[in-house]
């Protein structure tokens, strides 16, 4: 009951009820009930094809869910496209980097929502100065290190690129950040850099959903672990009450959470 009360208090930033996605006959996601509270960092884990990315795609408006409900910031929402989600305050760092290689850092941060000095439809004049200034603030806030803002993304390391993608969050004061395997393609140092940014977000009380395969990373960074298996949520574990072996058991199907017995 206490959970319900929290909901009424508006402590919950994102909730999905019975969220379901089918591609033709394939049940990619089945009845997902998920809750994220303000300031909370939650990891989503699961094997390949367990429904993690499908789940993320429904929340971020990349795809439309077949059934169920998404409640974001107290309101039921249905995002037509990623821009809708972004405008509502959900910022996503995708597995495939959504950056334009030939553009520089401010251009990428403001892609699709450029600041303009003079409004003239598609020929509105860009306000480069303001965009650079806000980029600088955002990067400093998140602790991202980039030598030269005006270099194109092409000239940056994988870690720097990922940091730029993450820095969008800080630029637009988003209400929720979702990261889909942000360090999958990164080296050790670069991974540490990204993880530091995640910690900064935690300190600032920004809620986060982290999709990751990296057990160490998950236990380092988040408060709670939600395990997906075969399109269903099979466990909802508090980090302090579980361990790696336990999580693996859920991921592989050796174990299923009590409240999710019917899902197995």
């Amino acid at each position, binding site marked *: 009951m206490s959970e319900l009360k929290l909901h009424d208090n508006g402590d919950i930033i994102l909730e999905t009820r019975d969220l379901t996605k089918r591609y033709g006959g394939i049940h990619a996601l089945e009845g997902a009930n998920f809750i994220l509270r303000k300031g909370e960092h939650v990891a989503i884990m699961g094997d390949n094809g367990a429904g993690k990315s499908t789940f993320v795609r429904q929340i971020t408006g990349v795809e439309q869910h077949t059934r169920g409900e998404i409640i974001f910031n107290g309101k039921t929402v249905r995002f037509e496209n990623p*821009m809708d989600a972004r405008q509502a305050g959900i910022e996503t760092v995708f597995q495939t*980097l959504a950056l*334009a290689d*030939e553009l520089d850092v401010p251009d990428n941060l403001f*892609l*699709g929502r450029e600041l303009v000095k003079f409004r003239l439809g598609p020929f509105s004049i860009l306000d*480069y100065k303001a965009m650079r200034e806000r980029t600088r603030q955002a990067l400093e806030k998140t602790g991202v290190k*980039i*030598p*030269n803002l005006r270099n194109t993304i092409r000239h940056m390391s994988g870690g720097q690129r990922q940091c730029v993608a993450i820095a969008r969050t800080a630029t637009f004061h988003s209400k929720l950040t979702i990261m889909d395997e942000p360090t999958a393609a990164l080296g050790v140092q670069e991974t540490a850099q990204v993880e530091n940014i995640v910690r900064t977000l935690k300190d600032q009380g920004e809620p986060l959903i982290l999709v990751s395969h990296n057990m160490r990373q998950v236990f380092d960074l988040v408060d709670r672990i939600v395990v997906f298996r075969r399109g269903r949520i099979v466990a909802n574990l508090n980090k302090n009450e579980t361990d790696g072996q336990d999580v693996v058991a859920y991921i592989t199907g050796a174990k299923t959470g009590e409240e999710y017995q019917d899902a197995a």
Partner: protein
Amino acid sequence: MAEVSHGIGGLKFDASKRTWPNELNIFAALVLIILVFEALGALLLGQSLLFDSAGRFDSIFNEARLYIIILQVSIVGIIAIGVTQVIILGGIDLSSGSIVGATAMIAMSFAQTELVNGNPNPKAIFGPTLMDLPVIIPIMVGLSCGLFAGLVNGMLIAYTRIPPFIATLGMMVTARGVAKWWSKGQPISFPTQDYAVIGNGLGGWMPVVIFIALAILFQFILKYTVYGKHTYAIGSNEEAARMSGIKVARHKVLVYTIAGSLAAIAALVLSSKNLTAQAGMGIMYELDAIAMAVIGGVSLSGGRGSIIGTVLGALIFGVIISGFTFLRLDAYYQEMVKGGIIVGAVVLDQWRQRPSASRS
């Protein structure tokens, strides 16, 4: 002494090592090519390509040749301004030459004068009511033709998702068909005085002035407006652009429409300059325009290039053609060398991309 600037997060960088603008390389190439022709000229003919070698007192340049170099590239250059945007977008436009043909024919038929030296116009397309019209009418008709053709290109590419190569190839053949069908293959001639100004005004400098004005306008638009930013973004990573909320399909339609309209402007200038329109006008212009852009550093893989680069590419193009004439070489060699230069420019572009790709 390296100049050290402060970056984000306490990092420093050497500001003098900032990426060298590619336009400077192209400018260097232009200078180099001129020097080669100067050297060959001095060696073989004892003459200079660009400088006065007739011993006149009032001039150091050979103005006549400078004029020809820039004039002969300005009309295709106008097309190249549109083609540059299409290539930066990650597309290609093969239809511009044919759009020039069709637009020239249609616009010219609305620009005819009724009486030629007191006799009825022998090439008249319409009756007297549609002759001696104010010049704005053929201009608007011509612009609409190009705009419409570009719009069709853009719609096909954006909404049926067929490759730009195929869509514009179709338009290339269709528009050429329109150009031939319009007057059943007959040339259309004898425009009004006002229409003739478009290509001959300002003492013959009008095409150059139009070219330069459009180049400045679109250089500004590409660099300083949302339109330009989105064009680069889509060419650089279309998926990222879409995920960032850019209306990719709508933007593509806009870019192709602008390219079509620029081809129409080229058609107006060309038909006015020649005082006639023929169905075969503009053949191969699309390839020359693409070549100018590519030589000017516009990357065929999209996302990179600028109008300044294309203008420099156009000048390189003009210098080479004039240089060959100057050296009294056959026109056949011109085409062979032109082909080689285009391939060379693309190879160079690929090569430039490689070191940065291996860096990450």
